[in-house]
C-alpha cells in the first residue's frame, strides 16, 4: 500500500466541490443543513475539503510541497468521516477515503506523525493495551456483579467486546453493563474476556499507525478464532467499524460474525424475546455514527489497480462500496418499538449522516474542531423538535455530552439506556 498507488485518482479530481455537501441526489432538504464535510465548514479554505486534500497529496508526491506544520494540521483536522468519499463515489470510482488515510500512513512512515495530541493514545496502547492510560488489571471491572460467563475459561457462542471506552470511562460503563444484563437475563450464550480484552486499535489505524494496528488486529483475530466464537458483539461503533470494515484487509480468516449491539438487541425484540413495555414519552432523533453507518461495510482498496475499457474508462475490479448497507434500520426499529417514543429524523441521516467530530484522532489533536462539529450536529438535532439525541457510539456520546455542557437543553442518551429502561 502506498500513497503513490492513488496518483491517478488525484489527477482525476475536477475540484467540483461535490465533496463539500451531502449527496446532491439525496436531494438536499434545506439551506441550513446542506453541507457534509465538517472540516471545510469550519476552516473554509479549499485545502480542508476532501478534494483539497487530494490536491495536496498530488502536490506532495510531485515534490511541490513538503512537510510543514500547516500540512499536518490540514491532514489531521478531519475526522475521516467518509462523507467526501460517499459523495464523490456516487459519480466516480475515486477512492477518496483511501487517499486521505494513506496520506496519514505516509506521515507516520516519514516520522512526521503522531501529532502531540495523538502520542498519548499510542503510548497508552503500547503500555496498557487501551487508549485511556488505564491499567490492564482493571479492564474487566465494568462487569463486576453481573453473572456472565468467562470466555477465557469456557466456550461461548457470543463474545461481548466492551471496547476501551465502555470499559473504563466512568460515565459510560453503565452502557456496557446494561447491554450485558439484557443479554444474560435473556439466556444468550454470552461471555466476556475480562482483563484480557485488548483495544481493537481503531485509533491507531485512523491516525495512520499501521504497525500498531496490525499487531493488535492480528492478535485479536487469532484470539477470537481460537475461542471458537460465532459472534463478536460490541456496543462501540468504532470497534464495530474496524472489526467489520478494516480487519478483513489483513486477509486473515475470521471465523466469526461481527455484530453491533443494536443489531443483536433488535433481533431479540423482533423474535419476541424481549419486549419494551414501559412507556417513555419523549420525542427523539438518532445520530448515525459514521463507523456504524457508511464506514462499516468491508472495503477492499484497489491500490490503484485498474484496467481501461472503451479507450479511457478506468475499471477497478473491486466491489464499489457507497455506504448504503450500514446499520441504519435496526436502531430506528428499536426506538420505534418503545411505547411513547416519537421518532423524528434529522435532515442528514443514515449514509449521509453528519459526523459528531470526534473520530480519527480529531478530538485528541484538535478538540476545538471536534466540539464545533458536535455543536453543528446538536443544532440540527434541535431543529427536529426532539428533546433527546440518541446515540449508539461512545465516542459520539462523549463528544456530544461535552459540547452540550453549556446549552444542555437537548438530552444525550445512549440507545441501550432507553431500551433498558423500557424493558425493566
Amino acid at each position, binding site marked *: 500500500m502506498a500513497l503513490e498507488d492513488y496518483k491517478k485518482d488525484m489527477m482525476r479530481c475536477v475540484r*467540483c466541490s461535490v465533496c463539500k455537501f451531502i449527496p446532491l441526489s439525496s436531494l438536499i432538504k434545506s439551506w441550513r443543513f446542506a453541507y457534509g464535510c465538517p472540516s471545510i465548514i469550519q476552516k473554509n479554505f479549499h485545502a480542508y475539503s476532501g478534494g483539497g486534500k487530494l490536491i495536496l497529496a498530488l502536490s506532495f508526491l510531485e515534490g511541490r*510541497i513538503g512537510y510543514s506544520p500547516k500540512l499536518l494540521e490540514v491532514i489531521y483536522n478531519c475526522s475521516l468521516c467518509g462523507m467526501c468519499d460517499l459523495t464523490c463515489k456516487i459519480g466516480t470510482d475515486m477512492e477518496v477515503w483511501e487517499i486521505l488515510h494513506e496520506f496519514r500512513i505516509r506521515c507516520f512512515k516519514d516520522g512526521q506523525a503522531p501529532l502531540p495530541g495523538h502520542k498519548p493514545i499510542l503510548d497508552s496502547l503500547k503500555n496498557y493495551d487501551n487508549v485511556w492510560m488505564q491499567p490492564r488489571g482493571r479492564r474487566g471491572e465494568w462487569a463486576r456483579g453481573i453473572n456472565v460467563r468467562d470466555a477465557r475459561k469456557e466456550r461461548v457462542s457470543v463474545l461481548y467486546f466492551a471496547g476501551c471506552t465502555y470499559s473504563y470511562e466512568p460515565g459510560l460503563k453503565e452502557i456496557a453493563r446494561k447491554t450485558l444484563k439484557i443479554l444474560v437475563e435473556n439466556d444468550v450464550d454470552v461471555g466476556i474476556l475480562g482483563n484480557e480484552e485488548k483495544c481493537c486499535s481503531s485509533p491507531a489505524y485512523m491516525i495512520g499507525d499501521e504497525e500498531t494496528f496490525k499487531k493488535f488486529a492480528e492478535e485479536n483475530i487469532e484470539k477470537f478464532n481460537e475461542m471458537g466464537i460465532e459472534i463478536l458483539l460490541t456496543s462501540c461503533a468504532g470497534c464495530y467499524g474496524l472489526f467489520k470494515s478494516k480487519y478483513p484487509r489483513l486477509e486473515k480468516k475470521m471465523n466469526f460474525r461481527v455484530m453491533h449491539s443494536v443489531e443483536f438487541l433488535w433481533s431479540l425484540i423482533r423474535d419476541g424475546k424481549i419486549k419494551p413495555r414501559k412507556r417513555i414519552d419523549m420525542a427523539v432523533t438518532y445520530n448515525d455514527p459514521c463507523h456504524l453507518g457508511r464506514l462499516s461495510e468491508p472495503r477492499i482498496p484497489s491500490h490503484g489497480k485498474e484496467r481501461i475499457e472503451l479507450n479511457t474508462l478506468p475499471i477497478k475490479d473491486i466491489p464499489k462500496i457507497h455506504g448504503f448497507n450500514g446499520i441504519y434500520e435496526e436502531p430506528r426499529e428499536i426506538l420505534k418499538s418503545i411505547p411513547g417514543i416519537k421518532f423524528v429524523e434529522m435532515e442528514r441521516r443514515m449514509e449521509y449522516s453528519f459526523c459528531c467530530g470526534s473520530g480519527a484522532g480529531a478530538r485528541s489533536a484538535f478538540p476545538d474542531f471536534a466540539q464545533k462539529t458536535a455543536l453543528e450536529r446538536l443544532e440540527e438535532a434541535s431543529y427536529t423538535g426532539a428533546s433527546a439525541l440518541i446515540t449508539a457510539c461512545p465516542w459520539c456520546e462523549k463528544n456530544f455530552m461535552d459540547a452540550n455542557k453549556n446549552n444542555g437543553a437537548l438530552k444525550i442518551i445512549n440507545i441501550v439506556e432507553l431500551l433498558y429502561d423500557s424493558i425493566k
Partner: protein
Amino acid sequence: MEREIYRIFEEIVGPENISDDPVILETYSFNWLTEFLPRSAPSKFMEHRPLAVILPKSTEEVQKIVKVCNSYRIKFKALSTGYGSHSLPGQENVLVIDLRRMNRIIELDEKNKFAVVEPYVVWAQLQAEAMKVGLFTTPIQAGSQASVLANLTSGWGMNTFGNHGGHNGRNVLGVEWVLPTGEILKLGPPNEWFTGDGPGPSLRGIMRGHCGAQGGLGIFTKVGIKLHNWPGPPVLETEPTGLISAYSIKNLPKFIEVAIPTFDTYETLANFFYRAGEEEIAYCLIRAGSIEHLVTFAGALSNKEIFEQWFESGFISSAKELIKHPCVAMVFANTEREFNFKKKVLYEIIEECNGKILPVFKEGPLQKFGGEEMLVGLIGNDTHFIHHAGGFVISAGYMGTADAVIKHMGIPQEKLKKKFIERGKILADGEDSTYHNSFENNAYIYMEMEFHYDAADPLSVQEVREVVREERENLMEEKLGFEPNDIGLCVGDSNMDTGERIIEIGKRYGNFHIWQEKVKSAFDPLDLSDRSNYGGGIYMKKRN
C-alpha cells in the same frame, strides 16, 4: 505578499480568514482543465500560485479588500464555488478572493417569485428552500453544488430546466456589484431586486452579456434571481435505490410524466423539438446523444457496471440500430386536467413526428431512465459523474435553432469524433455525444459536443487538445456562432492562452473582444480585476 499589506488585509477579515501558506495556495492552483493551460511542462497545477487567499464575509469587507488592492496595485480574482480553471487567476501575483463565507439567502419572495442570494449559495440550497413555497430554479449543468450567483452574473447560463425556466442570462434580476475600483454599483432600483434594469439604461449586457466576464469586471456580491413554478411537493423524500444517481424518490409527484422517444433521423428529432415548443408542454426538454453516450454517463453506479451491463453484455451493439436519436421530454403539471392534456399532446406529437417509445424504455433495462429516476437526476443535478473517465470537456457550445445546431455542429462533429475514437485515446461513448438543451419552449437550443478523456493519461490529454483544436478550426471556418468564452476555449495548443483564442474568434465575430476591451478599460482603469478569461485576456495586455 509583503507583511505590511498582509496585515492590512488581516485586519479586514481576521487572521483566520487569510493565508499565504503554500499548502493553502496550492489548492488554488489546481482545477478542472488546468492541465490544458499554456505552460513550459505538462502538469495539473497552474504555473503560478496566487499571492494569497482571502475569505471575506460581507460586501463591506469585499469593498475594503478591493480598495486596498487599488491602493497597492494588487490584482485580484474572486471565486465562489470555483469549478474550472477559469475560476483561477491566469497570471502571477494575484490575490484570490474566495467568497465561500458569503453564503446566505437574503430574501425569498414567494409572491413576486424571486430570491436574493450571496455568492456561495448553491443551486441545491436555493431549490430546497424554493420548493417549500412552490417555486423552482434553473440549475446550471455544472451541478447543483455550483454557485447560483456565478452562473447568473459571470459565466454561461445554460441549465437543465431551460425549456420551462429560460436561460440564466434572462433570470438575473437586481445585482450588487463591487466594481474593480472599489465603488459599489447596484443594478435595478435601489433596495429592490425584482429587476436588473433601470433607472436609466440597462447595464446587464455589459455586466454579463452572453457568457459573463468570468471575473474580469469586478466582484458580484448579491444577485436577484427569477424563480419559476414548482408543481411538486415541498420536500421530495429519497432512498438509495436509484440507477442514474444512486437515489430514487419515495413521494413521486402525481402529475409527472417522463418520455424518452427515439427518432430515426436528426430532422424528425428537430421537428419534435419544434412541435413540443409550439405546444408549450415540456417542463424539461433535453437530449443526451446516442444510446452509448446516454448509458455511459447515466447508466450505472460504477464504471465496471457501465461496461459490463451495457457494453460487454452486447446491449449497445444490438440497440444501436433501434435507438438512433433519443431525447427526454418531461411533462410536469399542477392539476390532473392540465397533466392529462399535456400528456396527451406529448404522445400525439411524438407520433406525428414519427417518434417511437420503444418497449425497452417501458419495461426493459432502460425503463429506470424514466419517472422518478429522471426527476431525481435532474433535480439532484449531480453531474460530477460526467468525469467518470477521469476528465471531460466540451469543445464548443453553439446556440441556434434545432435545425441549425444539427446541421452545423451535430453531423460534422460526429465525423470528427469518430476519427478520434478510432485513434483510441478518448472515450468510445458513441460518435454522437451531443447534449441539447431547449430554452423557452424551443425558442433556441444550446448544443455541445462532449469528450471524455483521462486526465491521468498524458496521451489522452494531448488527444483532447487535438480534437478540440480541430473542431474549433472547423467551426471558425464556417463562421458559426459558438460561445466565445466557452469551456472549450481553455483547451487547445499548449503554447496559446485563452486570450489569444478569444482574439482569434473575435476577429471572425464582429471584433467582440475589442468591445470587451473598451468596457474593461472603462470599468477597470488600473487593470486589477484578473482579465485572464475576458476580452483579449492577458495576451492582449502583453501585446499592448
